[in-house]
């Protein structure tokens, strides 16, 4: 057992770190125009692709380097150290373009993969709908064949980055006479097509990180279909394969931050600091164990990757742990501040109000990319081998399924 890179990994890490140091030094960062984050991200992505650090695991034929996944993890770790602006490309390069590589024609791959890799074109993923979240195969957005085109009507929701995306992959219902999972078809489309309207969602946290996307008689050429008609579900599974890994990362304040807060906050009993309060100390121990469980679990995943194994659905654990710890810990931090805890103004709240902001973000984290409940089902079914719940939609045409709100 050791926590060291192999010599090959260490060499790659050193090379990546040197490149990041040079590329993202404070001086060069300034040139990325900090007040325009998207422009800065695109400039960074272009340099990254130019230096050969984009698409590390992809096949050489599509511009990749065919490196094992561990190298992608290492580069990601180093990027995190330097706070590299990679956010806008996560969904496109992590989910959409791999779907294109698997299902698009050679000409289309030639046209779309490289510009995405260079950050010139951004992609979004259009799956979730108002009535199809956890049960995404219940979606209703309709695509109807009309000559060489399909005509799309409907609504998508929770689409990250739709407002700045150039293209999207879109899951539609093409045959409501068939069973739920069998009447779906996947397309890609230009987000500037006539009839596409993007509206930001006003989240409970106050911000707007996601969008609703409305489709009104949007025409998509049949040539932009991905996979066979009616085979959209299997195409979507390829897209979703990496989502939970992508969303599983650590977010917001953790045990170290609340430990520091507790050091400087009076205990509820009125004697000493909160850090000396026994009830608080017990909770702190539990958060530490959970945070370490996540971090060390990632090391186990990295070890498996390093040995060329593919990590399984057990990575679902990470998001359950992190999202719930964040909610619990930020709640405790606010209550520790007592009446003052209600203040969410970063100018006067402790730690720039990071606990208050994360308290309002945590409910979303427990839902995004697979709810706590769906992740438990995945662990139960795919790790422990338990049977699926009884299905009431088997053998029933989609149009005959009961729908609620």
């Amino acid at each position, binding site marked *: *057992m050791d926590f060291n890179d192999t010599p090959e990994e260490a060499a790659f890490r050193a090379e990546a770190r040197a490149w990041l140091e040079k590329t993202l030094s404070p001086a060069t960062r300034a040139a990325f125009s900090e007040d325009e984050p998207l422009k800065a991200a695109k400039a960074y992505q272009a340099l990254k692709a130019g230096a050969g650090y984009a698409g590390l695991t992809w096949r050489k034929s599509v511009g990749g380097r065919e490196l094992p996944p561990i190298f992608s993890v290492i580069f990601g770790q180093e990027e995190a150290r330097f706070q590299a602006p990679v956010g806008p490309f996560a969904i496109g390069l992590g989910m959409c373009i791999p779907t294109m590589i698997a299902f698009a024609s050679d000409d289309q791959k030639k046209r779309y993969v490289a510009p995405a890799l260079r950050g010139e074109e951004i992609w979004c993923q259009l799956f979730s709908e108002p009535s199809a979240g956890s049960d995404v195969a219940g979606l209703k957005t309709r695509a109807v064949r009309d000559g060489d085109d399909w005509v799309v009507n409907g609504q998508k929701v929770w689409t990250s980055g739709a407002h700045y995306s150039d293209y999207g992959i879109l899951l539609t219902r093409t045959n409501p006479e068939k069973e739920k999972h069998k009447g779906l078809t996947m397309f890609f489309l230009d987000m500037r097509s006539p009839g596409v309207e993007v509206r930001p969602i006003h989240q409970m946290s106050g911000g707007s990180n996601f969008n609703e996307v409305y489709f009104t008689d949007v025409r998509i050429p049949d040539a932009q279909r991905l996979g066979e008609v009616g085979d959209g579900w299997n195409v979507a599974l390829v897209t979703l394969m990496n989502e939970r890994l992508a969303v599983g990362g650590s977010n917001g304040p953790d045990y170290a931050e609340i430990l520091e807060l507790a050091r400087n906050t009076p205990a509820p009993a009125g004697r000493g600091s909160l850090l000396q309060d026994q009830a608080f100390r017990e909770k702190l121990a539990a958060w*530490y164990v*959970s945070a370490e469980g996540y971090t060390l679990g990632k090391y186990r995943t990295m070890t498996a990757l390093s040995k060329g194994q593919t990590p399984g659905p057990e990575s679902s654990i990470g998001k359950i742990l992190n999202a719930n710890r964040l909610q619990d810990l930020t709640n405790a931090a606010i209550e520790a501040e007592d009446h003052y805890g209600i203040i969410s103004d970063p100018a006067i709240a402790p730690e720039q109000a990071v606990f208050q902001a994360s308290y309002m973000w945590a409910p979303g984290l427990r839902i995004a990319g697979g709810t706590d409940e769906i992740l438990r089902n995945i662990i*139960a079914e795919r*790790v*422990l081998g338990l049977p699926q719940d009884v299905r009431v939609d088997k053998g029933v045409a989609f149009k005959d399924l009961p729908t609620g709100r």
Partner: protein
Amino acid sequence: MNFDFSDEQKQLKEQARRFLADRSDRGVVRSVLNDAGKSFDQDLWKAVAEMGWLGAAIPEEFGGLGLGKLELCVLAEEMGRALAPIPFSSTAYFFTEALLKAGSQTQKGEVLPKVAEGGVIGAFAISEGPGAPSPGSIQTVFDGAALTGVKIPVTDGDIASHAVVLAREGQSLSLVLVDLRQEGVSRDTLTTLDPTRGHARLTFRGAKAERLGAAGEGWDLAEAVLDRAAVLIAFEQVGGAQACLDMAVDYAKGRYAFSRQIASFQAIKHKLADMYVAIEVARSNTYYGAWALSTDASELPLAAAAARVAACDAYYLAAKENIQTHGGMGFTWEVDCHLFYRRAKLLSVQAGAPGVWKEKLVRRLETKNAA
């Protein structure tokens, strides 16, 4: 990054699992449970000694296999899974670690070879009454040559040949090594929640004893031994918790209610998923403890505390929810659920209860964060 056991260590684990499935099946465990006069399985103890496992982490110069702590960790996990009714933890974790940590060359040379061949059963005696012990609470007295006082409970104290005892010496505390086969020592067998392991009250009346380690360093040495034992016990706990989850999964698939497998109900699936998550959190933390133990890293005290807290939580959850998944059958004597429920409780208090370790964890975390 190589945060996993080696192929050889995994083979050892597989070998131990097969061996214990055969030699420590539930019939063997129950023979100890059901016989009030029997507190361990002698045949199993002999067989384990013959495999060399008692000396797995004892250096070759003291008659052991000299394999290392990681090997002992994988053995511990399988001992826990099999509920092995033998004084393995008392002897191979607490007693051996105490000798390795604090013993003189002579003491190690005299005792450890006998441990490795199975001729010495060791115990570790701290507790004297209800509540967590503290430096001020220890009443047993060592005068430099003789030991006087009462230790209760001592796990495997009824069958041990030797014990390491925490005792007051002058103004401070020392660890003391005592041969229990002498007139100055009497033992009373105790009724406990886990009859698959022996427990006793040990009464010392001027018993001949010798110091283990420096005078006055008893408390710190005991803490160091507990850190090491906590990691190894955590592996037993993970093994036991995993056995509970395996049992629950198996039962839920085969049991039908409302004309379907109860394993298809989300109430059951989510319960079992939560057990899995708790076990994986414990497993990751115990692996880190194993790394720290095997390299004697400065991270050991914090890693051991985290491993212990996580493993206590996971085993308690898995043991109680395994009973719940089994329904009424789980509450019967015949079904094995209660064996784990009993062992889970023993292991969660034997090396200091979770509350004690949460406090240790935070104290160690404060130190680390201040540094």
